[in-house]
């Protein structure tokens, strides 16, 4: 290895006779290696891109074209590209309504999770009361409880209460299952808020609620954003909960498009454009709030 040469100038001087040749060879090997590495990484990047490319191009071709030839042929025949599938999608009442349903379910549940989670985390970090640590342990435990556990009991409960199949029902379910993560993530952040900040407000005689609103929430914006992004995507992308708890009137996109799955071969154009429509918002959120998304993902498990 050439590292010792870098360590101190004296080594370089001593090895003047022997080192250059070895250095060249090493550099050559290094160059070849980095060339191979680059090739490998580009191949991997392509492997990751091609599937999405396929979906995009299928969604931009007519059903007949998709039946006749593979989506890759469109690269040679760009005239086949058309927005017809999307026009059909926009005119489709069911798709449009389910898109709106997705918004109606994910936005409120995100706001509620952030609000309720922040309140709980505030109490768990900045207030002292008996059983506090146990509640936190319970929250960490519930972090991994599978959603499946609640499907049967809650669908029965909703049936009894008459909220089965409503958007509200779906929202409440998502809020509940988002809370352990919310509390967990925000607690981690709140612990790091300098105590002086809160003490100063308390000296001024502020009540807890005021401190929470005026001091804690503003300084926690990055954490709140991470949580919001993550919760929003989680609810937006959900299929299982909606499959069980929503009705055709309140179904989000994932569930509404599901009925098209059965004739997969014949209607890839509809499915592909529908899937792309459902991906649009998450991808936008991903690219705009990338940092927050990554932070949120990092918080998914106790470290």
């Amino acid at each position, binding site marked *: 290895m050439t590292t010792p040469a870098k360590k101190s100038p004296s080594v370089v001087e001593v090895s003047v006779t022997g080192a250059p040749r070895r250095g060249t060879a090493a550099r050559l090997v290094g160059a070849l290696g980095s060339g191979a590495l680059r090739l490998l990484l580009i191949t991997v990047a392509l492997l990751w891109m091609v599937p999405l490319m396929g979906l995009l191009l299928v969604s931009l071709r007519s059903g007949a074209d998709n039946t006749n030839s593979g989506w890759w042929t469109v690269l040679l025949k760009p005239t086949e590209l058309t927005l017809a599938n999307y026009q059909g999608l926009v005119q489709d009442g069911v798709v449009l309504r389910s898109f709106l349903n997705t918004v109606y379910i994910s936005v409120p549940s995100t706001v509620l999770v952030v609000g309720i989670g922040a309140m709980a985390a505030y109490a768990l970090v900045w207030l*002292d009361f008996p059983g506090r640590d146990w509640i936190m342990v319970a929250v960490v435990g519930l972090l991994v409880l599978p959603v499946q556990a609640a499907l*049967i009991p809650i669908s029965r409960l909703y049936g009894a209460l008459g909220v089965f199949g409503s958007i509200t029902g779906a929202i409440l379910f998502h809020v509940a299952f988002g809370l352990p993560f919310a509390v967990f993530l925000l607690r981690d952040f709140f612990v790091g808020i300098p105590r002086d900040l809160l003490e100063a407000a308390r000296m001024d005689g502020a009540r807890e609620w005021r401190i929470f609103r005026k001091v804690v929430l503003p300084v926690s914006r990055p954490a709140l954003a991470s949580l919001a992004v993550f919760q929003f995507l989680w609810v937006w992308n959900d299929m299982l909960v909606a499959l069980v708890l929503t009705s055709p009137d309140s179904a989000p996109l994932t569930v509404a498009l599901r009925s098209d799955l059965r004739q997969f071969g014949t209607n890839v154009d509809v499915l592909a454009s529908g899937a792309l429509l459902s991906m649009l918002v998450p991808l936008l959120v991903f690219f705009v709030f990338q940092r927050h998304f990554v932070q949120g993902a990092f918080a998914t498990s106790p470290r």
Partner: protein
Amino acid sequence: MPHDLPSDPADHRASRPRRVLGPAILFLLPALLFLAVFLLYPAAYSVVRSLYDASGARFVGFDNYAHMFTDDRTLTAIRNTGIWVLVAPALVTGLGLVFAVLTEHVRWATAFRVLLFMPMAISLFASGIVFRLVYDENPGRGVVNAAMVSVHDAFSTPSEYPGAAPREAFLLPDTTLGGFSGTHTHEPGRVVELPMVGVRPDDLPEQASPASVPEPADPFDNAVRGVVWLDVDLDGDPGVLDDGEYGMPRMTVQAVQDGRVVASTTTGDDGRFTLPRTPPGEYTIHLAADNFTEPFRGLTWLGPTLVTPVLISSWVWIMTGFAVTFIAAGLTAIPRDALEAARVDGATEWQVFRKVTIPLLGPLLLVVFVTLTINVLKIFDLVFVIAPGSVQSDAGVIALRMWQVSFGAGGDQGLGSALVVLLMVLVLPIMYFNIRRFRRERP
């Protein structure tokens, strides 16, 4: 990062104002209500419910659990979940480590990681459709099979006449050699006429030209001549070479003696062939199986045998970015001094990686692995979307089976609840792991 902010837990515990219950309850109440109603109560309910029958009216003890391990489809689901847990998280953690290390000194590492991370933002439903397309069996739609077919056809020419067959009076299917063998034996010097059917005239290769019966070879040549042609029924007599019938080019014709191929040739554009230097004695004419093999169409990825590996590969596509980003963050946190010290001591890069990097990353890798394992146990949408209806029983996992059993046709919420309990038991070790970690690291 919140961890960077100054905070001393011991210090802030000592002087924490004792405000006791009042405000604490108000702040906590909404969250606790939600957790109690939607998480704790259902978990307890599921345990109780799993002891009752489908309708929930009759107590059946552990019958549902017994049923769970005897019912074929449920057993398959449990087995598949086992495969997932054993293979998928380890695979993704490994790939994550490899890519994190490889991109460590690459300038466009961030772009690479973002690209890999992107699939995690989209729904499993959409990813499912993406991969249903990728692995479509039809090489005209599925990109994997399209690639396989073009690679395959680049190395072995696809056969010219799939589905073609000779008239039975002349040649019959050969069970030992494959292809077709003559019904009669011949001696050198004869002319052999081989009428074929089963190909549409339009499907003949372009260079095919009208066929004609060749002159017999000189008997001293030991050669056999003949013609292979497409025997069209419409105008002429079956089995007779009529005017306007076309030869079948590039057909492999062989002479077989005592079960061994002794001579081989291919037909010309007019369907004629000459088998030179045929050994004396009796032999039969054989049309090689290669002429008739169906074209290679790739693999049935979404069939019962391959569907689980295919599903795992799509999950790898979704989760690898998460592992890479996570592990890359851990790599940057490794103190440079530790690495340099090892290098100064003469360790090779591989040794540095094995003996320094990996041990220092260990705890982080474990966390990534555990997080991925939880994710795997909950997998539902992917299987639901990618596996075609007829294959869902072969591809099933516990989370999907639970839904099918409870909410599908003939819903049995007793068995469904038993499956939920099984899932909860499976996450129990992870729960314990997380809680222990949490308590240790945040005193």
